[in-house]
């Protein structure tokens, strides 16, 4: 029964994406509240699912890869709902919805909803795990801002005037948002690691290695971004590449049992 909430959430994200595609295609796109509303309703459905699942497992619902994927999708939408309206980033919802939809569909249609791999009873461990995934949510949205930056940059360089050029935000704003989201994600992930240390969490070497590797990659990217060692285009590309790597390592980080 609880999975129906995810189906409903997927429908909302699909609606948001489809509506934007249609509006762009017909040349009638106007930044409005429709996308935000569809994303907010989808978020509400995901929240209900996570609440019910949390009750069922008696802990934060990140006990297996299925739940982690849903929690990650929820985190990305959460960050979007905070960042999107604040920065008035037109079309960010349209870029966010396919990613969260893909994560939900992957969760729904992959055989990853096995029995709980780990049950978290220590609140520090729970805090560590939940905050790590929210940090990944921020990195996910940074990757989305990065994709938007690269698309807009390409349009401007190639002198291609399209609906996208008119509706995407200025690249300077996208670069700034990209940097802020990277910083937010990095701070959250660092705090999450601190919580893990506080909880004296013992995990496999592979899991530790993968987590530290991702943390170090983002840290390095953030340093070169802050010191302006590389142009914003490479930071945008870096945030996309590292997020893809982070997603690929997600099963190892979230699925491997606690020692």
């Amino acid at each position, binding site marked *: 029964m609880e999975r129906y909430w995810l189906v409903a959430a997927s429908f909302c994200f699909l609606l948001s994406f489809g509506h934007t595609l249609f509006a762009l295609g017909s040349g*009638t796109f106007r930044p409005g509240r429709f996308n935000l509303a569809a994303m907010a309703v989808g978020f509400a459905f995901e929240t209900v699912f996570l609440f019910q699942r949390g009750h069922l497992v008696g802990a934060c619902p990140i006990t297996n890869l299925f739940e982690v994927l849903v929690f990650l999708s929820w985190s990305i939408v959460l960050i979007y709902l905070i960042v999107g309206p604040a920065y008035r980033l037109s079309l960010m919802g349209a870029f966010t919805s396919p990613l969260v939809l893909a994560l939900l569909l992957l969760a729904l249609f992959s055989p990853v909803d096995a029995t709980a791999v780990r049950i978290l009873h220590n609140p520090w461990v729970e805090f560590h795990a939940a905050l790590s995934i929210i940090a990944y949510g921020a990195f996910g949205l940074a990757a989305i801002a990065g994709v938007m930056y690269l698309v807009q940059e390409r349009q401007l360089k190639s002198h291609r*005037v399209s609906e996208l050029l*008119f509706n995407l935000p200025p690249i*300077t704003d996208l670069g700034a948002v990209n940097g802020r989201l990277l910083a937010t994600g990095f701070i959250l992930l660092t705090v999450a690691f601190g919580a893990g240390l506080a909880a004296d969490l013992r995990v496999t070497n592979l899991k530790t290695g993968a987590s530290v590797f991702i943390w170090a990659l983002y840290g390095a990217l953030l340093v070169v971004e802050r010191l302006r060692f590389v142009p914003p285009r490479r930071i945008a590309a870096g945030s996309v590449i590292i997020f893809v790597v982070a997603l690929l390592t997600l099963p190892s980080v979230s699925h491997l049992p606690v020692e």
Partner: protein
Amino acid sequence: MNILCAGINHHIAPVDVRERLAVANHEIGEVLRRVKAIDGLTEAVVVSTCNRVEFYAASICPERALDGIRGYLEARTGMQAPLYHHDTPRSIRHLFRVASGLDSMVLGETEILGQVKQAYAVAADAGATSRTLNRLFQNAFRVAKSVRTETRITRGATSVGAVAVELAGKIFGDLNHRRVMILGAGETSERTARSLVSRGVKTVIVSNRTFDRAAALAAEIGGMAIHFDHWQNEFPDVDILISSTAAPHPVVTRERLEPMMRQRAGRPLFIIDLAVPRDVEPSVNRLEGVFLYDIDSLQEIASRSLAVRQREIEHCERIIDSQVTDFIGWLRRAQHSLAHS
């Protein structure tokens, strides 16, 4: 009740005629009072912009009202103005087209809607409007909004200056703290710089081979003139470069720009090359953070935007036609209820 529209615009009258008929803001109250005193005319609105002077009136006898307006204008200006005039329903359609920017010199421009709203507000405040014109103008504002939101008639910029401003906005967002450098004080570069200043650019640096010309232009647009030999010293802080020198060879080369870009700490640079032959090597566009547009690419974007707008005219006209029909229906019902009351 009939709705009469009489006036002149840029289609039929040159500027020297339009300026004689133009009604200044401080004169509108008096003009409305005089026009409303015309026999058979019950309501009036005067729309006076740089491209048109139009009188909208509600009248039971439009011929008499038109004669009255003609007579008044002749007395006021001392000339027989070549007025066009429309009765219901063409007058309604005309106002809807004007408010929607379809009758403007720059197709789809939106400034006219604000001007029509202002003209209506002045007339309403002066007590020169009543039920018919109130309803007509409120409908016109709604139609203009529909046309703007449901079609692409306002899409893109249609002049080189406006395209440059639009692109600058897509690169930098807020232009308030951006620095502009003009290399070569040509007419188009001056217009482009003015467009950027109108969008909030505060700092303009002008450099020209003839320093006096640079100083004159800088004084006109509130900028700062520098000697042509020194432009590279100011360059690292510049965000937008407008180049239109008469140099036979490129002034800005990739070789020269590359080290300068390294000093910019990742800040983008928008180069508008208006010169023919070009001042900037095309390969400069391949540098990280550089967005180079020459005169052809800007004109092409402007032409494409205009073509998009022109393709939208039919769609706009359909929206307007349907709204004209609705308004005529309301007008008939209003007259019917008045006759039976």
